């Protein structure tokens, strides 16, 4: 469990609209995501979100990204450039080379 030899999926994760500030001001991460979560379920977006919070978030204000265990309102999630609602949202099972973009909606003008 948790050994380096465990199978992983290579993906890219992008942050935009200010969310990059929560992730060390880095807009793109190349991530090797474990193929399954702790309970053996195939890695999905919900797992990715948890994984990001645990291993990549550099800002203690987790609630700017996650509220009550889910992505907070006002953040769009795009899977390979399409709204995640077209793909099954948190249940979408992540595939090799997927691009997942988290973007916070802006209101200024």
């Amino acid at each position, binding site marked *: 469990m948790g050994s380096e030899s465990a199978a992983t999926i290579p993906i890219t994760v992008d942050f935009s609209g200010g969310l990059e500030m929560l992730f060390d001001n880095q807009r793109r991460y190349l991530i090797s995501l474990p193929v399954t*979560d702790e309970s053996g379920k195939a890695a999905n977006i919900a797992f990715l979100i948890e994984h990001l919070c645990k291993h990549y978030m550099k800002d203690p204000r987790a*609630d700017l990204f996650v509220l009550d265990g889910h992505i907070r309102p006002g953040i769009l999630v795009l899977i390979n450039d399409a709204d995640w609602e077209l793909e099954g949202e948190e249940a979408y099972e992540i595939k090799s080379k997927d691009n997942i973009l988290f973007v916070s909606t802006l209101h200024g*003008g």
Partner: protein
Amino acid sequence: MAGETKDNSLPKNGLLSARSSDGKFSRRLTDDEFDRYSRQMIVPGMGREGQLRLIESRLLIIGAGGLGCPAAQYIAGAGVGTIGIVDGDIVEASNLHRQVGHATSRLGMKKVDSLITHLKALNPLPTYIPYDFQLTPQNAADIISQYDLVLDCTDHPITRYLISDICVLTQKPLVSAAAVQKSGQLTVLNCPPAPQGLVDGEYPPCYRCCFRKPPPPSSMVSCGEAGIMGPVVGMMGMAQAGEAIKILASGLHLPPPTSDDNTAPPLERNLARPTLLIYTYDLDSAVGPYSFRALKMGGRKKNCFACGEGSTLTLDGIKTGNPDYVQFCSAPTINVRLPPEQRITAVAYHAAKEKGELPAHILVDTREKEHFSFGSLEGAVNMPFGRFLMNAAAVKRTGGSARDLLPTGAADGDAPIFVVCRTGQDSQETVEKLRELGLDNGGQRKIVDIMGGLRAWKQDVDPTFPFI
């Protein structure tokens, strides 16, 4: 329409051509119009017919700021016939780096008057209509209903949701943009417009379909607080103008010729699913100077509050305060109200502690660690709320031990737990969550919220407390 007045400059795919034939575009362009607009009319896809459509169109720009100024310049330049502008603000010096329709000589002037001064110098032909007050639920429908298309150039979710709702009910296309700091966003909504409630087939989304809930107020940044680069917001405003000109010139805003009030032809998928354009500008690194991304959004949502099936949203309702936009955009996402026996005031906690009436207990402070580091109550342990929620969700999902959520040593025994946060909301949620996870040991262990948080503590108990 007579054969010789037709030109082949508009795209002739089904929808556009269906909307492009009605007789009023047979008038001649004046010499002035011809000179002024010739360079855009010769662009394939525009033509004389497209230009006449622009001249016949009425466009409303809501917000005369960083988006509205550049958008208005190109809208006026292109010859849109009637241009309404809504804004209640006055021109300030801090606006000028991005709000290019104003001028140093017009500081203190109403923004709408200042911008119209600029636009008239650029192109005196259009009719300009100023609305020098804020858009409100009471006046929005009366204004918006007089136009063919709306540009949302405002800077707050309250107006964004209001504008979208009115556009759904009055069937107006909405070109929406926003920008903060170094990023901008743009999307075309409700275009071509379809009656509220139609969901069989593909129809375009409204603002609520794409952005169902506003972000919590704590996470929202405005240009005033976070700053904004002029070219970033300018680029978005210009892109709004570009989309608006395209829609008006091609007649996409017009109801299809054969429809009665309750139908609209289902759209090709492509049209019903708009693109969200994201522009990111980089000040920090030479590696990625800028990026544009075009993202595919979904179509109209069946369960959308505004445009979906069985929606109860009405113009009368909006006028009389239903929905309450201020409430919608300021309410915390989860609003817990604990029963009185699970709460104690800051004053009562302090008094009981001073008198030695409090049993040995654990005091948990759920603020972020930066806040905690500036000062905390005696004996408090820090358990940042964001992390706690995340960990709690992980426990629920994977069935780990809830006891590990509490700070070291706090999980054992039945000593009461008091929870304090900054202003009294997070602490209530924490109390509720801890009980949900069984950490009250089946009621053996008291878990209590200190009401009003450290703000109340500073106000009612210790005015010297370093509250940030």
